[in-house]
């Protein structure tokens, strides 16, 4: 029995710790992989300690956790005492049930309600303070939300202890001449302290770990660690996040061990007290260490900080861009945002801070912009989205040709269909959609067909990926069938839906940026994606190939725009101008891997040499440079001409609201068209039946027992009376 329990414990803990140990192992990986261990290195720790993003997030997380835990503890402890003193049972239970709502409610509902609440608050505030942005109240919103969901845990921890303690002690104190306040602070509080502290630690942990509520409420200028990790896991987690987790877990582990070890030595009586103080001290120590470390490494101030305080206030501009869509200093590349801060300071003597956040799809960006009160200064939508945003009057009008570097944009890319007079946008990158395949997993003759139908090939069932957004996913089916991707005919969309439903059973999954991970670890064999991202993947996994399907592909241009409600449009224009400069544009083009619309980039010999030497070789010996700029099979030419000509087809156009709703509904139907495996029904129904049977049985037993006691009591009474 004893051995069995030991084996059981070991087994469960082993399973529980496998992912954590693997995570620690891969934090020492030499390569940028979380699946294949290639060698030991401290590279990711160095990377982590030089990443201001991670440390800012860590500091934000800690500050938020400490403040919300403190606030929740104070309010919660007072409330527990107050609730205890309440005489009305009804009021008591009413307060208790309301308090428990955030605990009982799923996080996602609390998050949703908080988000809507703060949106309403913003609506009211906007009337009073015309120029307010969500970022101004963002931190307060986060603090309020975190405190709200921490509160019930504090009360739940403190209230039972107060109930247990009773009134006798504080009454004695009052009788001996204490004021009520003294009685509370000198007598009651020390006695309930363990419960208060455990409530606080609980609140701290919960706030630290919270992702869902922060995800809904979080402003763009206050990123917490879970949010950072989420944005990273959308694409590919680099092992530096593993390194950070390793550091956190090792620190916590050491502190727990130390506190345990120390309390062993002391006598049983003082143990509890000591334990409490040790827990407090260790929590404080973690915070202090973390804050000190983070303040060392955080370079929160703009890159121009060293240049003394000339300009006074720091202007913050909010840049909202696609994930992995700017050269960020990784691996020795240029940190474009920092360079801009320096450039701006040199030019105007004013300090600017670039607050850079990312999104995964055009639609995400659009809804964030139109639904929340977050204000951005720069966004980088694709062509059709720009068209839509111009139509809806969401973009700031500025004359792009007034920018001194606008001449660097090649003529072809000026006056595109969505912005004929260059009044709203400046092209950032352009590229094509195509099919990525794994050369060792896909047979050559299947590739040679150069068709979208590879995505429907039964032979590769379970190894195929599809876009996880309606526009691109529908497009793959529509290009294959030669349908118009901008069709206004609902039947055309139904036709495409049928194809996608047919494809669903052979898919491994619908993915967005997860594709990087799936393709480079050879988890999947075939996926539709964009050429620039393909080059990034090919850099890591040479076994990948790419082709433009013959039926036609999407040609897109992503362009920098300024939203209408931007706070600093002049600085934003300066930012756009800076991005067009040779240095920044080349750094970006090399980093992102998409084609550049910038003449200075395309004609630059070094850049050309870099791309030709990229480590990619196509079937006919073409290089990465060719893939981006020269490979222009007839189909691409067609797409290209359509983008730059006048007729519409191959590039996306903005939908009418009716078609948009239609597409969303169809997409939902696709997601819903899922045949649940029978074992799930059987198992879950079985469990429900079992639980119900148990409940009925226990009710039956209870009734039987109470009947027995009732009879017994009656009998006892009778015998007593008889006596």
């Amino acid at each position, binding site marked *: 029995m004893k051995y069995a329990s030991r084996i059981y414990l070991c087994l469960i803990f082993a399973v529980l710790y496998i992912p*954590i140990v693997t995570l620690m192992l891969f934090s020492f990986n030499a390569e940028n992989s979380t699946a294949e261990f290639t060698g030991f290195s401290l590279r990711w720790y160095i990377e982590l300690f030089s990443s201001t993003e991670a440390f800012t997030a860590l500091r934000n997380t800690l500050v938020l956790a400490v403040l919300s835990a403190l606030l929740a503890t104070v309010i919660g402890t007072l409330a527990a005492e107050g609730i205890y003193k309440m005489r009305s049972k009804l009021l008591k239970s009413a307060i208790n049930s309301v308090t428990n709502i955030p605990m009982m409610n*799923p996080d996602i509902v609390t998050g949703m309600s908080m988000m*809507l609440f703060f949106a309403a608050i913003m609506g009211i505030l906007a009337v009073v303070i015309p120029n307010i942005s969500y970022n101004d109240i963002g931190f307060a919103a986060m603090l309020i939300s975190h405190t709200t969901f921490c509160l019930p845990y504090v009360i739940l921890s403190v209230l039972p202890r107060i109930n247990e303690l009773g009134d006798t002690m504080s009454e004695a104190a009052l009788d001996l001449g204490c004021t009520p306040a003294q009685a509370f602070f000198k007598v009651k509080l020390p006695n309930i302290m363990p419960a208060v502290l455990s409530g606080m630690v609980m609140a701290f942990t919960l706030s630290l770990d919270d992702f869902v509520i922060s995800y809904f409420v979080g402003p763009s200028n206050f990123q917490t660690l879970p949010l950072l990790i989420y944005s990273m896991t959308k694409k590919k987690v680099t092992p530096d996040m593993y390194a950070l987790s390793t550091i956190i877990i090792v620190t916590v582990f050491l502190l727990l061990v130390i506190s345990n070890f120390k309390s062993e030595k002391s006598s049983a009586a003082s143990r509890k007290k000591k334990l409490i103080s040790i827990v407090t001290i260790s929590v404080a120590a973690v915070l202090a260490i973390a804050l000190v470390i983070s303040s060392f490494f955080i370079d929160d101030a703009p890159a121009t900080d060293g240049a003394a305080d000339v300009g006074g206030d720091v202007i913050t501009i909010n840049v909202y861009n696609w994930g992995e869509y700017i050269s960020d200093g990784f691996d020795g590349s240029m940190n474009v945002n920092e360079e801009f801060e320096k450039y701006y300071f040199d030019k105007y003597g004013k300090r600017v801070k670039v607050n850079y956040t990312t999104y995964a799809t055009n639609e995400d960006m659009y809804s964030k912009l139109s639904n929340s009160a977050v204000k951005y200064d720069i966004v980088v939508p694709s062509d059709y989205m720009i068209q839509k945003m111009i139509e809806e009057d969401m973009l700031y009008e500025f004359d792009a040709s007034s920018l001194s570097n606008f001449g660097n944009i090649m003529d072809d890319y000026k006056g595109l269909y969505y912005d004929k007079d260059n009044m709203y946008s400046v092209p950032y990158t352009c590229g094509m959609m195509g099919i990525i395949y794994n050369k060792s997993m896909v047979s050559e003759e299947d590739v040679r067909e150069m068709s979208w139908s590879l995505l429907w090939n039964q032979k590769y069932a379970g190894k195929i990926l599809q876009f996880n957004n309606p526009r691109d996913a529908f497009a793959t089916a529509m290009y294959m069938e030669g349908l118009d991707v901008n069709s206004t005919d609902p039947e055309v969309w139904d036709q495409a839906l049928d194809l996608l439903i047919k494809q*669903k059973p052979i898919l491994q999954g619908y993915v967005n940026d997860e594709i990087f991970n799936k393709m480079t670890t050879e988890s999947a064999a075939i996926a539709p994606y964009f050429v620039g991202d393909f080059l990034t993947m090919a850099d890591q996994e040479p076994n990948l190939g790419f082709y433009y399907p013959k039926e036609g592909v999407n040609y897109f241009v992503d362009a920098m725009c300024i939203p209408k409600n931007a706070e600093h449009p002049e600085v934003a224009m300066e930012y756009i101008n800076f991005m067009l400069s040779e240095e920044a544009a080349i750094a970006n083009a090399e980093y992102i891997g998409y084609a550049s619309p910038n003449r200075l980039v395309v004609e630059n010999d070094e850049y050309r040499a870099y791309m030709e030497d990229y480590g990619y070789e196509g079937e006919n010996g073409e290089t990465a440079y060719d893939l981006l700029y020269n490979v222009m099979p007839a189909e691409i030419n067609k797409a290209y001409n359509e983008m730059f000509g006048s007729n519409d087809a191959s590039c996306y156009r903005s939908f009418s609201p009716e078609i948009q709703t239609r597409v969303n509904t169809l997409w939902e139907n696709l997601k819903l068209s899922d045949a649940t495996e029978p074992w799930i029904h059987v198992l*879950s129904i079985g469990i429900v039946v079992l639980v119900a049977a148990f409940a009925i049985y226990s009710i039956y037993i209870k009734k039987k027992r109470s009947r027995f006691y009732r009879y017994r009591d009656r009998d006892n009474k009778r015998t007593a009376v008889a006596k």
Partner: protein
Amino acid sequence: MKVAGYGSLGLTNLMKNKRSLGQSILAAPHIFWAVLFIILPLFIVVYYAFTDSNGQFSFSNIASLTDYAPIFGLSLELAIIATAICLAIGYPLAYCIAKAKPKHQKIFIMLLMLPMWTNLLIRTYSIMAILDDGGFLNSLLNTSFHIVGTKGAVIFGMVYDFLPYMVLPIYTCISKIDRSMWEAAADLGCGPIGTVVKVIFPLSMSGIISGVTMVLVPSISTFYISQKLGGGTFELIGDTIERQFVTGALNVGAAISLVMMVLILISITIMNRFSDAEEGGIIV
């Protein structure tokens, strides 16, 4: 109770009442907070659920929920299975820990809590990196198990992530059971298994119920686990809400949230009927 009552005269009783009234004011900040930040936001959810995107009163969001019934069903089923597995694994675990020496108990509880200090997202991602088709496990064993992308993987992720929430309340409950109960059961002729089934299990019911609640609720509403381990071929209700949030269909999102909340609060109330514990649940 009565004995204590004799000691206090009518006058002090009156004073005590006054004091109590004065001191229940301490709850005022909390009540204010709760009304403003708990109740009001829920009313806003209700408002959104019953209006269309132009702010006009409408039932269309609620009516459209029938489309989501299969997703509700699937989420519920997966969550029920995950909770049952958590209970099946977690109860013996809590029992083993509670039976261990006090010195060891502390270590086990620490080991159980430690993973919770690693972010849930990172843990889930780590599972994905291990179980993926080209992941660590498959490359280590040179196999090609297809796990990620199945519903089994999602259940595994739920069990893995939420197991501590099941074990901790049950452990607290079992370790609070008076030793004399075990002895009494043994004295009255119960074997070790009989003791667990007839005495310990019923007495730890409140722990089980709070454990079940704490696993079931996050399992039903998760969207991260299903996104990472489910491969995106199927959706859970959390994914649907998240998608509505991301695409800006807030009214439908609010309607789904509302229904989910009502269903969960009802089922929790029903569950708590079976719990004898006075204070809802016990945590840690």
